[in-house]
């Protein structure tokens, strides 16, 4: 069993690692690349670098290796061995003493400030590791950073909740004209508005028939079968009560009207589907669709 706190104290005691020299001096091409990537259009960075770039200058490059006395590397290795194999950066606080001028050559030193844990987090149990870095031009400190990561043991993935959470779903607003539909869902019936005057089927419903002007809407109970007329696979952004990606389909019912609903399964236009009712809570049951079993 590894004593993490003892190992941390041993590394912290060593203090700052030897200064590591930046690969290149502060230079305009890198400044321009950075400004472009960040989308910063400030015209002032021609002789000095944006302060927030400070970490860029001492990055180790694509194939960089940590130095042997790098305290963060040493601590990561110990936590890896102890089973805390995953890492996520949690925060980084930087202090800039002055602007860095083009041509200045930086070096960086790092010490281990703090290791705390084990903590239970949403990601799993882990240790917070805090280091402190100082950037130097010669013997002048020009910037500092406190950097914290969480080294954690990934939690077992919880099974996805199959039913939407009542508190999360977007609830329909219901009025006199639409009450029959939602009442039907609660009773396991997919209801389509039918005009009490001329018999016109209509969805979404309304109080006055656009064909004959009657204001006595009735309904028929649909067979609950139809075909996919069009569909969307929704990826972004998150939708309350749903897990992305998910499919929403526009279904053309056998009775002739169209209706939107979530579709469980691989979608294709023309595919036959049937209705499913999912109870959200005592007030709301949602209709959705799945590929037809029989046809």
């Amino acid at each position: 069993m590894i004593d993490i706190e003892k190992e941390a104290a041993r590394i912290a005691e060593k203090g700052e690692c030897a200064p590591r020299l930046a690969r290149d001096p502060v230079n305009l091409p890198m400044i321009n690349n950075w400004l472009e990537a960040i989308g910063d259009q400030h015209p002032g960075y021609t002789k000095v670098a944006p302060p927030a770039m400070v970490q860029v200058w001492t990055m180790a490059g694509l194939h960089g290796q940590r130095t042997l006395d790098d305290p963060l590397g040493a601590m990561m290795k110990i936590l890896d061995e102890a089973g805390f194999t995953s890492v996520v950066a949690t925060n980084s606080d930087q202090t800039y003493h002055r602007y860095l001028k083009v041509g200045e050559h930086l070096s960086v030193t790092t010490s281990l400030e703090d290791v705390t844990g084990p903590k239970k987090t949403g990601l799993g149990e882990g240790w917070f590791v805090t280091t402190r870095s100082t950037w130097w031009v010669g013997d002048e400190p020009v910037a500092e950073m406190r950097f914290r990561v969480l080294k954690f043991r990934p939690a077992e993935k919880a099974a996805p909740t199959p039913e939407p959470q009542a508190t999360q779903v977007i609830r329909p607003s219901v009025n006199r004209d639409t009450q029959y539909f939602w009442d039907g869902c609660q009773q396991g019936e997919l209801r389509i508005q039918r005009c009490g005057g001329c018999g016109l089927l209509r969805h979404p419903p309304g109080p006055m028939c656009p064909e004959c002007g009657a204001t006595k809407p009735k309904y028929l109970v649909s067979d609950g079968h139809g075909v996919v007329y069009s569909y969307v696979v929704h990826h972004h952004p998150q939708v309350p009560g749903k897990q992305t990606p998910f499919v929403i389909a526009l279904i053309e019912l056998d009775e002739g009207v169209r209706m939107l609903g979530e579709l469980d399964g691989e979608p294709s236009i023309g595919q036959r589907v049937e209705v499913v009712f999912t109870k959200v809570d005592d007030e709301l049951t949602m209709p959705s669709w799945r590929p037809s079993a029989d046809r």
Partner: protein
Amino acid sequence: MSAAIVGIGATDFSKDSGRSELQLAAEAVRAALSDAGLQPSDVDGLVSFTMDTNAEIAVARELGIPELTFFSRVHYGGGAACATVQQAAMAVETGAAKVVVCYRAFNERSGHRFGQVQTAAAANIDNSWSYPMGLGTPAAMVAMFARRYMHEYGATSEDFGRIAVIDRKHAATNPHAWFHNRPITLEEHQASRWIAEPLHLLDCCQETDGGVALVVTSAERARDLPNKPAHIKAATQGSGIDQFTMTSYYRDDLTRLPEMGVVARGLWEKSGIGPSDVDVAVLYDHFTPFVLVQLEELGFCGRGEAKDFVASGALELDGMLPLNPHGGQLGEAYLHGMNGIAEGVRQVRGTAVNQVGGVEHVLVTAGTGVPTSGLVLGQG
């Protein structure tokens, strides 16, 4: 019509304006008045979108506009854009007001973002047939139309992507555009992440903080003002059969935008010109697929032929129908269509950064998938 747009103004287009929406509106209106050579005291009418958070009276207070005799709002999000100018022109022509400013200003990126799921919108009874089912973003609502359009006409994601590539190409040479100097390739479009299949990220317009304002007055008064007026040859609104906001899924045909068909008929009839007389098209481009459908609805090509029309190069600056020379909303900024009208004015004036030669008529359209509007701007 005998009214003209005589001034245009805008704030910077950013992702974080750092100021209130009212300040953005006031700055844009002041800039437009300055461009028009008019004073706040000349203004007696204001028009905006119902979605705008800046009340006419608040804008009037900030500008020091003393009295208003006309104030109006237009519904349906981006569909309102060209209709604000129609409102202004009607007010000027009927004598309800002499100088009307149309404005739209918001912190659409740093503040309230329309691209997110608007849970509160589900309170609208129409939305109860879509939002609770998980269809709650504009991108997903357009994607439903796009999928059917692809199915019926064999259009592909690349066909949609070509619109994004053209817009970003034009924005690349527009210093006011957010995506100035940042063109994209069709490969980058294809590689961008899914938002709502069949729409990639690069099929969806950006989000912007900013404001745009337009000054409308009579053609007669326009003659005494410093800039060349953009005459309003036609301005019209359109709503189609069985119309919904973004979810008109219950019509026979999902491959059309009948509301834009209504606008098109009105524009051609009132202006006396036809599609072949249009020198520049500023088409609303919040999502690429609807640019193709607009080309068909406006009569620039036949049904289902937009993909071939686009691929032919027709929409390039030197093509037969230069599209969105400012970069559109995909490239310049998303100001709910108002920045497109400002570009239309610059094209008529001859002062655009990507100026098309010999412009007689510019067509501008407003938001699609919603009740919408359109304009034909032209020389005197």
